[in-house]
């Protein structure tokens, strides 16, 4: 039977619509499953004003048959077949005529009884109960109340349309009563619509200027855009977020094209496209990398019969571009360097001081990073970029378009004629924003970005601001992901703990927590970020544990360790070697470290292991130092036959203390080398008994 629900709401943000639909579907399925009503197809549709659920479901619960037994047959009927008082009493107590009693054969013998039919509840009864509950339980990133109602929702609910099996389904929610009527487009066709089923509903709305399928609206928008652009041989400056927002925000899309005076084209593309997108939600038009003096907008309308929509938007855009040009010219009158001292007046964080303080720290950190990553020749440029990186916060352009921070600074630096390295580093130093975003394209940009992000993380942790649950008030998780991404993709080989130490040292006494505590917290924090990145990249969790289990002094090396493990994981030597490594790990567990004396090896097995190990160690030591864990691991794995032989023929726990300690010391030395690659004890081998401890 068809169930159709439309919640009519005042304009909701697209993020709210998306989460509400998912939530609505999920809760609807769960509640109906709990009520034992099978649901076939379940679909959802939406506009910014409508949340719609369509389901094909059973008309109600199935009737349930229950067998109720009474006295044994022998006690129920007299010899003449007439019912005894026992049978009469039973029938009376159950409220049925005695004539309906039947003989029922059970494992225990024959009894009298009857089949009781428990009527299933109708779908309508159940829906009327659960739908208001579900709607009251939907949650949104920000909730509101309206009028004198008690419900909290994304925006005020104004009508509820609900059908079940072609009939209106009536329930109440916060003063509204559901019925079989809704309304067409609020502005274009605000007439009442009645419908008996989904097809009628959809067609009637279409006629009244509402397309309920977001995917369909998106296709319409793209099609119309294409028909505007094809004759110009031009392309859309891609903006999937804007497209998704507009597909949500209009019920009947109409794409209009407009133009602006070519004089504005000397503004950078970043600024033009932002000015268009932020206020009026307009798309930019490009030909290759060149911006064209056109824009595309999406109206909630079937057409622009008098050209008012296009002309109005052109007028508003011209004013905005005029503003942007004014900002651009005004800002350029004062060089970044000359503006920089005013950073003292801009607060970075209450306990951590101004952006000028931050910039002074970034200069030191970038110098340190240049030295540690051996790019001394760009040090001057990176430090200069650091010095100017935050100055754009003082410009009118960034005050107008905060999302362009960094980029604006880079563009101004370039326009001022500063070295390209400096300008580019400033331009991209906020990147990557999130794991999907590209890290900076240049070394200078990458080092500045690292310094900036680590400075923020250490500072916030250092003054004792706690991150709880999903809250990430200073974007620290995103910043930490950015740090990991830059280090891994740039293959930066540097001691992370020493870097953290340096960041703390540069802060000096500004940090309220002890340095050790801050570093410990950050190490744990980054360990978790790395784990989630590796997890997202699809690595086996136990290999991740093994690679991270030996510490994260060098984030890039952690990644190489993991890749080494991953590359050998399917080779035939892998599992036997893991088991062997675990055996070594278990035997030496809890033993005090001892010194090895080659002269004390008596038996052939141990002499042989010692000499194999010595050769391997000599070979792999330089590889480990370089971070070539793959090659080192391949070579170390060659120890396996000797190790195997050793365990088969030599008694480690010899009675004589000297011999025993010496053998343990040999195994400790082997374990030490293994541990330079990974903590193999964390690798899970198939068929292995859990807690395989000796």
């Amino acid at each position, binding site marked *: 039977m068809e169930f159709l629900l439309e919640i009519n709401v*005042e*304009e909701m*943000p697209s993020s709210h619509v998306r989460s509400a639909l998912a939530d609505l579907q999920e809760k609807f399925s769960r509640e109906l499953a709990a009520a034992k009503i099978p649901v076939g197809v379940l679909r959802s549709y939406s506009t910014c004003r409508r949340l719609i659920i369509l389901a094909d479901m059973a008309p109600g619960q199935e009737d349930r048959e229950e067998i109720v037994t009474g006295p044994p047959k022998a006690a129920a009927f007299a010899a003449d077949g007439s019912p005894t008082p026992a049978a009469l009493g039973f029938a009376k107590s159950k409220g049925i005529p005695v004539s309906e009693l039947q003989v029922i054969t059970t494992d225990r013998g024959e009894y009298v009884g009857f089949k009781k039919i428990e009527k299933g509840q109708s779908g309508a009864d159940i829906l009327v109960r659960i739908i208001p509950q579900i709607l009251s339980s939907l949650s949104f990133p*920000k909730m*509101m*109340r*309206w*009028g*004198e109602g008690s419900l909290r929702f994304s*925006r*005020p609910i*104004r009508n509820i349309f609900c059908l079940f099996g072609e009939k209106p389904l009536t329930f109440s929610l916060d003063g509204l009563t559901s019925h079989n009527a809704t309304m067409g487009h*609020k*502005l*274009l066709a*605000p007439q009442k619509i009645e419908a008996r089923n989904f097809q009628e509903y959809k067609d009637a709305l279409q006629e009244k200027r509402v397309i309920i399928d977001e995917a369909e609206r998106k296709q319409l928008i793209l099609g119309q855009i294409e028909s505007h652009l094809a004759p110009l041989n031009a392309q859309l400056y891609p903006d999937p977020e804007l497209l998704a927002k507009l597909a949500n*925000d*209009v019920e009947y899309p109409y794409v209009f094209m407009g133009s602006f005076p070519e004089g504005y084209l000397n503004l950078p593309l970043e600024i033009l496209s932002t000015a268009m997108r932020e*206020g*009026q*939600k*307009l798309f930019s038009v490009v030909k290759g990398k060149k911006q064209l003096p056109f824009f595309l*907008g999406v*109206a*909630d*309308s079937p057409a*622009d*019969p*008098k050209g*008012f*929509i296009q*002309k*109005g*938007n052109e*007028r*508003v*855009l*011209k*004013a905005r571009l*005029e*503003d942007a040009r*004014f900002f651009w010219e005004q800002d350029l009158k004062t060089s970044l360097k000359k503006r920089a001292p*005013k950073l*003292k*007046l*801009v*607060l970075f964080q*209450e306990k951590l*001081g*101004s952006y000028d303080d931050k910039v002074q720290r970034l200069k030191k950190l970038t110098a340190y990073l240049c030295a540690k990553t051996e790019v001394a020749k760009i040090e001057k440029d990176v430090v200069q970029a650091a010095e100017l990186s935050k100055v754009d916060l003082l410009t009118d352009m960034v005050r107008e378009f905060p999302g362009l921070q960094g980029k604006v600074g880079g563009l101004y630096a370039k326009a001022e004629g500063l070295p390209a390295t400096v300008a580019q580093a400033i331009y991209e130093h906020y990147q990557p924003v999130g794991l999907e975003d590209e890290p900076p394209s240049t070394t200078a940009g990458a080092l500045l970005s690292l310094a900036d992000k680590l400075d923020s993380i250490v500072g916030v942790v250092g003054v004792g601001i706690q991150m709880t649950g999903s809250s990430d008030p200073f974007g620290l998780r995103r910043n930490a992901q950015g740090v990991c991404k830059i280090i891994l993709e740039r293959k930066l080989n540097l001691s992370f703990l020493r870097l953290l130490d340096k960041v703390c040292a540069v802060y000096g006494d500004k940090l309220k927590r002890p340095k050790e505590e801050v570093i410990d917290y950050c190490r744990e924090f980054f360990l978790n970020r790395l784990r989630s990145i590796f997890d997202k990249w699809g690595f086996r969790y136990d290999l991740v544990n093994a690679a991270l289990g030996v510490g994260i002094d060098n984030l890039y090396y952690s990644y190489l360790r993991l890749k080494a493990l991953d590359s050998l994981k399917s080779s035939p030597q892998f599992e036997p070697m893991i088991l062997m490594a675990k055996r070594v790990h278990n035997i030496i567990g809890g033993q005090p470290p001892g010194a090895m004396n080659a002269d004390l090896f008596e038996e052939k097995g141990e002499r042989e292991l010692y000499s194999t190990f010595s050769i391997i160690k000599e070979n792999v030591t330089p590889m480990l130092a370089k971070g070539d864990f793959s090659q080192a691991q391949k070579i170390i794995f060659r120890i396996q036959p000797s190790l195997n032989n050793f365990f088969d023929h030599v008694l480690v726990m010899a009675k004589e203390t000297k011999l025993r300690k010496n053998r343990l010391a040999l195994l400790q030395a082997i374990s030490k080398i293994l541990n330079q690659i990974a903590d193999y004890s964390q690798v899970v081998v198939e068929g292995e008994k859990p807690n395989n401890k000796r």
Partner: protein
Amino acid sequence: MSLQNLVMSLQKFWTDQGCYLAPSYDLEVGAGTMTPDTFFRVLDKRPWKVAYVQPSRRPTDGRFGQNPHRLQKHYQFQVIIKPSPADIQKIYIDGLASLGINLADHDLRFDEDDWESPTIGAWGVGWQVMLDGLEISQFTYFQQAGGVEIFPIPVEITYGLERLEMFLEEKDNIYDLKWSEDVSYRDLRFEEEKEFSEYNFNQATVKSLRKYFELSEKEAAHLIEKNLLLPAYDMCLKCSHFFNLLDARGAFSVTERVKMIAQIRALVNEIARKYTTNREKP
């Protein structure tokens, strides 16, 4: 339609909806929301309907009369209705139609834009209303003011009068607007914008502004003590205006800005708390 006719049409429309027509408030405010006709009246439980023009000062927006659409003082048309009616969007749309705008020829959109004022501890949920890409109104369901949860929920509609008039006259420059048939916006306001921009950005004496702020703050605290909440709130409005002037003068040190906002908010929250307690007494 001239600007004064626009004002008269809106006054007619909203008084027809039952709104009381309030005079503009006689202190410098940043927005119509800040005047007592909105601030106090949304706090209690009684129904309230009001409409008024409010001159609104934003010293940092001054452009010496040189920018065709930015002003350090502009005019808002403020409407408050409590509780918010179920058909308020339709009423608003009818209001636009009553100005002679045929919406079938235009693109009217309610675009997500929640509102917040940390200075008076207030926030609400709603939209900026866009007409062919031009923001002509703010439409907000208040949820909190003076740090107090509000109930019943009022709706606030604020028209930017210059914006709307630019739309109606299809003009690109505010100063070209007609105030009346024979007086232009330039005639009335150009000199004022020039002089006040110079005052706001260059001539206001920072030391005196700090002193005024301090004195007004003290006075507010004193008046709160005496349970004179309306005068106390006036003092907070003065604080807010001196704060805005200091901002335009670029006079804030690192922590000062945050601190001063917090100072005003603390006073306003205290006023709101006392006001609601007094009103709830039998």
